[in-house]
């Protein structure tokens, strides 16, 4: 009963656009109209977008700085391999469980840290990333040590070798994450999280359990990072402990800062632009490393809130604008 009602008119347009963005490229990749190289770039960009969303949830929406989201990604990646290969779980399930295990670790780290006010989370997550890296390097029997681990389960190999499969699955997850998070943030839970970001003392005095909602934000962010990692492992087919490094975490943070703290649209746009930019600037050889910081400097100078600030792309508004535009055109033509 409820399901039929859930699909109201407002949802048709976004649904169509999502399906379009998901299916058309998949078909194009399948028939190699989009070549494998390009397909890899956009798929990697989608993973980066998931990671940027994860960082944005904790930094942009909850207002707590985390410098170790890549370590949650690494946990997700290793867990998905372990669950698929050692426990024989189907890939889909192991991806979800990998997300949950990252969330559990997020809970364990957040519990003592988020009770404090201030930037303690940044310090703890920074240290945590290094700890994870060392653990992954030394538990050789499970993680393969410094040489990394190969994902050899048939499902994963299928995923690695068929760009259309990996593109479809990863973008599907990206869309689901965006939709669910948008639903979440536009609810009283979401508003509570934003209130904590805005002013902890005021939130607390207005009946918002500050610790509870900081934890909620951090656990969701960890979960999303875990999913990101679990998708990355079969996409690349091979993972190393360096995944958990500080540099990676900072890279994702840069996407968020550039796109706008508190804007999911911004994170996605920044992830896609910067990931493809890194590839398309290869002809500059090592000079391309200069372009990246230059972009950052210019954005920070002219748009200190990031490209989109806290604004979001809205289907409803876009639809209205489109209708208004067509009306105008029609009126002009009639004249």
């Amino acid at each position, binding site marked *: 009963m409820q399901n039929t009602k859930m699909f109201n008119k407002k949802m048709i347009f976004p649904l169509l656009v999502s399906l379009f963005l998901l299916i058309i490229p998949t078909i194009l990749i399948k028939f190699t109209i989009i070549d494998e190289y390009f397909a890899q770039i956009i798929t990697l960009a989608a993973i980066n977008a998931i990671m940027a969303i994860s960082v944005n949830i904790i930094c942009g929406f909850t207002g707590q700085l985390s410098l170790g989201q890549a370590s949650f990604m690494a946990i997700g990646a290793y867990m998905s391999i372990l669950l698929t290969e050692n426990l024989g779980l189907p890939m889909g399930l192991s991806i979800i469980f990998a997300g949950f295990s990252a969330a559990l670790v997020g809970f364990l780290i957040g519990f003592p840290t988020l009770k404090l006010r201030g930037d303690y989370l940044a310090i703890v997550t920074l240290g945590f990333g290094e700890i994870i890296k060392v653990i992954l390097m030394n538990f050789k029997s499970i993680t393969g040590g410094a040489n990394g681990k190969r994902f050899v389960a048939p499902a994963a190999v299928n995923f690695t070798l068929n760009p259309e499969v990996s593109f479809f699955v990863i973008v599907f997850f990206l869309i689901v994450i965006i939709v669910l998070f948008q*639903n979440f943030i536009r609810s009283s839970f979401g508003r509570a999280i934003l209130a904590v970001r805005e002013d902890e003392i*005021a939130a607390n005095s207005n009946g918002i359990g500050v610790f509870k909602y900081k934890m909620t934000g951090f656990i969701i962010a960890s979960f999303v990072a875990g999913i990101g990692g679990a998708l990355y492992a079969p996409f690349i087919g091979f993972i190393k402990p360096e995944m958990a490094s500080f540099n990676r975490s900072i890279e994702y943070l840069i996407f968020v800062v550039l796109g706008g703290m508190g804007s999911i649209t911004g994170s996605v746009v920044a992830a896609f632009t910067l990931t493809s930019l890194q590839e398309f600037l290869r002809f500059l050889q090592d000079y391309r490393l200069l372009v990246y910081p230059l972009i950052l400097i210019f954005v920070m100078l002219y748009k200190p809130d990031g490209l989109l600030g806290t604004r979001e792309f809205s289907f409803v508004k876009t639809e209205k604008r489109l209708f208004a535009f067509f009306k105008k055109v029609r009126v002009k033509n009639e004249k």
Partner: protein
Amino acid sequence: MKNKMIMQATDLSIVFGGLRAVDKFSFELYQNELVGLIGPNGAGKTTVFNMLTGIYTPTEGEIIYWDERSRVHSIGKKQPAVLNKVGIARTFQNIRLFNSLSVIDNVKIALHAHRKANIFDVLLRTKKFRSDEGIIEEKALQLLSLFKIADKKDELAKNLPYGEQRKLEIVRALAARPQVLFLDEPAAGMNPQETEELMELIAFIRKEFDLTILLIEHDMKLVMGICERLIVLDYGKIIARGLPEEIKKDPQVIKAYLGEEALEHVESE
């Protein structure tokens, strides 16, 4: 006969490092009273507020609170969020709004406790979630129109003029339907005209929401005009309490506010 007692603090003290910011503060608050807490700068008024609303934990002493259903709560170590749920709301000396959120969202956040939907309802946007949102939206709008700022509901809180920011903070505090409201210098930074309006506003909300109010204020006109009872703090200690008329003539109060010489001057008159 006095009304029901709703809050009682006995011998509250708080020590920051070596400083005894508040020393043996005791007071009672009765239902529907309007009490003023005054004193020179640095006397410890806001610290008292912070203890009564759970932001600071007193070093010594205890605070007992009776909620609307006469259940007893010991405030001591409770979080402000917990106290807010049993009917204690407050505003802040330097306005603390959720600045980059809209006016209506500021109020909706304070209506957080009214939700019935759980996390799955939210993620899947079920009927329960939508009815929840409808109710919250309606309640928030009602409040905003009661205070005549409904037309600004979609503006960011930080873009409101100063007076309306103060108002919005009071609206937000009222959204939780508190039994007792603590106002920390509501007239700070207001001109005489605005202060006048604020006095009317306080009288209005007190009647409309059946409130007990404790307020900190520097503006003597406001304090003398609306408070039924005053407590005067200086250097963390209560130096006087009583009716506004009595307080005005109290030598210790005059000394605290205007100095020794002023006292001599008053006495010689």
